[in-house]
């Protein structure tokens, strides 16, 4: 329990550091949001007036304090370009991106574990070279390219789904999932092959250890030695890897959303960056960082459950 509290403490500290980093990064930029909002009509007077209106003429620290206080209450400020509260603007989009990311990680886990186990068990056979080669190739396909290939093959040639015809999860949850499975798969694809490779490598490394010999000396079958002894030990590094991968998967979903026309955080993040709509950008980045940090916490706790050697 104490361990969990301590972890949550560092989590909050990290998030505070992240929010400071994000906020101050945007307060040092040369071009002011008022200028970009006014465009060609900008005069010194109008800029000053708008700055005052938006509260940008006050000291940075005061604004940071207010911003953080607002976030605690679930208020991320008001978007410059949409003139609506950021919270309202993002709420549905967060759900979409999170749905996509969680689906991608689930697909990764569900497919990579059996595949990795199969490949590890077959590592003595002639098929090994074939598996390794295919795996290495899949690992090298960036998710946005595999996304394009999936659109081409499954969408346009096989007509399994209609690219661009995303259905909101609010209207029809299952149709939405049926659409998201394709982008989720293209995010998951390189991760699956990485996990397969890692699982195989660690399983082979574990198989050389002394305790495996002990297990054989007690008359266990090869299969029992693998499933009862080697596998659990081999999975520990994989859990660490999955924890680090969640960040990548979130970033990957931002890109892959563009391939499949999924209205998640990705598109609004990109338009807000080019439109210099900082409250929106700040909110999205902070939210995604939170997702990453929280997932790391979950992995830490899982890790403790798996490995008794980790002390509180």
């Amino acid at each position, binding site marked *: 329990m104490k361990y969990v509290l301590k972890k949550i403490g560092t989590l909050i500290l*990290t998030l505070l550091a992240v929010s400071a980093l994000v906020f101050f990064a945007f307060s040092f930029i040369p071009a002011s949001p008022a200028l970009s909002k006014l465009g060609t009509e900008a005069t010194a007077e109008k800029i000053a007036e708008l700055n005052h209106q938006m509260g940008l003429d006050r000291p940075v620290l005061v604004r940071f304090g207010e911003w953080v206080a607002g976030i605690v209450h679930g208020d991320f400020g008001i978007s410059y370009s949409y003139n609506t509260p950021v919270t309202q603007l993002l709420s549905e989009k967060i759900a979409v991106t999170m749905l996509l990311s969680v689906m991608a990680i689930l697909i990764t886990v569900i497919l990579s574990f059996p595949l990795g186990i199969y490949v590890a068990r077959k590592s003595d056979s002639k098929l090994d070279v074939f598996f390794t080669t295919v795996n290495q190739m899949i690992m090298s396909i960036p998710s946005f390219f595999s996304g394009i290939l999936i659109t081409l093959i499954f969408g346009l040639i096989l007509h399994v789904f209609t690219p661009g015809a995303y259905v909101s999860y609010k209207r029809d949850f299952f149709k939405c999932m049926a659409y998201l499975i394709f982008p989720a798969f293209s995010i998951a694809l390189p991760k699956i092959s990485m996990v397969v490779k890692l699982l195989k490598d660690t399983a082979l490394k574990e198989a050389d250890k002394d305790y495996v010999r002990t297990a054989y000396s007690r008359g266990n079958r090869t299969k029992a030695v693998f499933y009862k002894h080697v596998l659990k030990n081999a999975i520990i590094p994989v859990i660490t890897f999955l924890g680090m991968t969640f960040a990548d998967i979130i970033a990957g979903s931002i890109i892959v959303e563009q391939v499949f026309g999924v209205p998640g955080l990705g598109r609004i993040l990109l338009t807000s*960056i080019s439109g210099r709509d*900082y409250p929106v*950008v700040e909110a999205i*980045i902070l939210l995604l960082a939170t997702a*990453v940090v929280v997932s790391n916490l979950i992995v830490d706790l899982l890790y403790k459950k798996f490995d008794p050697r980790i002390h509180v």
Partner: protein
Amino acid sequence: MDNSKNKKIKFIVGLTLVGIIFLMMIAGIFCTPYDPLAMDMSAKFAGVSFKHIMGCDNFGRDIFSRVLVGVRETMFVSATVVFIGTFVGIIIGTVTGYFGGWVDEILMRINDAVLAFPSVLLALLVIGVLGGGTHSLIIALGIAFVPSFARIVRGEVLRIRNLDYIQCVRLYGASHLRIIVVHILPNLRTVLLSSVLIGFNNAVLAEAGMNYLGMGTQPPNPSLGLMLSEAQSVIFTNPWNAIFPGLVIVMMILGFSLLSDALEKKS
């Protein structure tokens, strides 16, 4: 069993792929078959032929020429990014690992906060501040790559610093600077070699991804990622417009990852 044979094959295939990429890069620097920006409406969506070996895009521009320039761009950006990451990473990692104390404490806290970001997201943040374009992209990815290098270097410096022979050299009265430059930095070689290769791969991936999002090279200039996103709207009628640049990206990543696998020392 035949691990060494496996490594040999990986090395040969990896080197071949990287060699082809380097040839493409050199061609991209010195001579492309066509001007990559020249539009030729009569060749709009021209198919694969001896004249245009990868066909032409919606403006009749030669895709092969654009791919060559794209490879040059990607290589240049990735190499610079890895250089920035390694250079700054070595400085931060060495100082924090060697001296420790509050500098270490503060810098590593910031480092951890930055590491909580996926590198693409961090690069997007920096581009949000600096605006788009190749220069911003290099700076953005460079910053995004520093923390991982800093962490690796710091870990290694910490390990080496506590080895007996460093204590011994210190007893002889060597200065900190001498210990760092003569005794510690050269020992980082092996760790750095593999992380530079892996970092380069990640940089290629990030560069292509950022360009795909339109956050780097500005049109009409070509880059591999940008070509992919431009070709996406015509994917059904002209799939080759997307497939060729995509395959070149795959080739780059595959080549460098095979090389880094083959060069990795047995642990």
